[in-house]
């Protein structure tokens, strides 16, 4: 069964803390995406900020999920990082019972409950600075357009999935 007109429901979730400069990249990107994708009713953009388990609803409701966050991969500041499927760390292996459930726990909970989205891709940027500040650093700010492009590319690929 091939139906090229079929629309996929796509959820874009920006997470991060905007008080710590480049940590907030996932949130800073959202206005750009909202503008670029405003005509597509099948796309839902959610400002997840630093919410933990409160994001379980949006994640489990998503079919195709894009997550945008700061990612520390030990690369040069501003480097764009893409993680697909298994590469997305579904949990931290910290030997503690948890205090504040982070996003990794949300993904794991969705998995355990067998309500994991059909596909997840995570896009992020290596922070240059995590100092106090409500703006991105210049280095990361300059790369924001490029990050938006890779996200929109992914959206387009999913939009035309048959």
């Amino acid at each position, binding site marked *: 069964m091939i139906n090229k007109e079929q629309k996929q429901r796509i959820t874009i979730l920006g997470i991060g803390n905007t008080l710590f400069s480049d940590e907030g990249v996932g949130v800073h990107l959202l206005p750009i995406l909202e503008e670029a994708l405003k005509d597509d009713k099948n796309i839902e953009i959610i400002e997840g900020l630093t919410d933990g388990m409160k994001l379980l609803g949006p994640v489990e409701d998503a079919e195709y999920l894009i997550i945008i966050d700061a990612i*520390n991969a030990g690369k040069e500041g501003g480097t764009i990082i893409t993680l697909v499927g298994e590469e997305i760390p579904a949990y931290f*292996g910290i030997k503690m019972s948890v205090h504040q459930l982070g996003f990794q726990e949300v993904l794991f909970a969705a998995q355990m409950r067998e309500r994991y989205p059909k596909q997840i891709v995570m896009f992020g940027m290596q922070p240059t600075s995590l100092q106090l500040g409500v703006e991105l650093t210049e280095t990361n700010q300059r790369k924001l357009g490029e990050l938006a492009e890779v996200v929109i590319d992914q959206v387009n690929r999913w939009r035309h999935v048959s």
Partner: protein
Amino acid sequence: MSERIVVDPITRIEGHLRVEVDIDEKGVIKEAYSSGTSVRGLELIVKDRDPRDVWAYVQRICGVCTTVHALTSIRAVEDALKIKIPRNAHLIRDIMNEAQFVHDHVVHFYHLHALDWVDVVSATKADPAETSKIAQSISSWLKSSPGYFTDVQNKVKKLIESGQLGLFANGYWGHKAYKLPPEVNLLAVAHYLEALDWQKEIVKIHTIFGGKNPHPHYVVGGMATPLDINSDNGVHAERLMHVSQLIDQAREFVNQVYIPDLLAIGSFYKDWTYGGGLNNYLCYGDFSTGDIYDTKLYRMPRGIVLNGNLNEVLDIDLKDPKHIQEYIDHSWYTYDGEDGGKGKHPFEGETTLNYTGPKAPFKTLDTNKQYSWLKAPRFKEHPMETGPLARMIVGYASGKEEIVNIVDDTLKKLDLPIAALQSALGRTVARGLETVLISGWLRNDMDALLKNIKSGNQSTFDRTKWEPSTWPERAKGVGWMEAPRGALGHWIDIEKGKTKNYQAVVPTTWNASPRDHKNTIGAYEAALKGTPMLNKEEPLEIMRIIHSFDPCLACAVHLTDLETNKTTEIRLG
């Protein structure tokens, strides 16, 4: 001879809360040091901003307690500018806070704290039929058949066999301090999973009244909620009905799942009496049936109990410079260029960072000197505990009927004296009891709001002092509330329409406080002292005690970390 044990992080988020303890040769904790290892610095970010916008910045302090900082901030601005809000706005704010409490406390119990008492692996050995019998004997909750518990058990078995334990990966399973029979462990694990589902629903109350998920909108002067029962947009009749249903579901879950589980688990740990601590309790009070300035109408009363003396409740004035002071003798700050020696009231507060600690990587902090990013707040030089236990103790000592009754009934059921509350388990029980009360107030406040709306009163915002031209040249105010983790205060100094100075003293700053100018220890440090550890490499006892306070060292930097995805963070020093 003592040995130093370091637990870092205590909170899941790397680098926020660290505990170092000295144990003697028998494994008993002799001294404890609690260190906040991350700067909050919010005070620096809101300086010079429009006071009407500050709530939106401070609500990002923390991903868990977003609403509480927003609310405290607007209350501070309203206090400074003497703004009175409409009754409906007060009700909606209380409804949102009450919903936050119920959500937070249930999530804390099942997802953040239960596994300090519940052994997940042991649940695989349970007889599901027996679990079913226990479940039916303690509650009328419908999901209680042997088949249901068998399904849950199979799920857990599958997880363990796959080696992908995820959320359950790093417990100290099999630790001798776990005392529950496998059947009760299975019951708790089943409800751990059910609570995940439940918590997704209750937060919709915030979406409906706050207009935005997940971070609701607040406004100085009231609420931005467009109440209109006849419109298609805004908060109309159908949405109000939805909130009403969510409230009933929440109460059902609290009364039929949370509380029966809490008492069932608690009854196996009555001998574990550790983790009490200071016995000094602080409450700002909240949930007024009138307005916020009328403390006599608080359902959760204001007051101070010192040294566990239930015969006396002292008053606290947040504006009195002698009542609340923050000390920095063991904290990485300076006051007027000096590294300690005096306290400052938050109105005069100063956030000048001055890190003098060791360079990473290091083994232990120099706890004789400065060792925390938290200041040491004190009430008339006394260290204080704040939060659910403080609220139940102060409420009990104040003779608040609802609180006295629920505390007495529960202690009778568990066959324990009131002093038993002053422990880690008592704190956890207190949290459950206040959830029962607050979920009842949630119902009452929603009914009051519906009544107002039906009588034609849909006002939620007072705009008379919205424009800065109506403000005085200089104004100071304090906002306070009882947040799920305890007494929260924000102090603002407004000059020429801008934020001149801002200070927040959050519940975890009281509880996780380091030593002060007199070397007096804080609430965590006191609670840990004297606790015997069965196995120093598996500090379950420390987790249990610290988690019973529901620590929240705000600012949730939750960077996805591919580099330091370590399996162990406990080090022996």
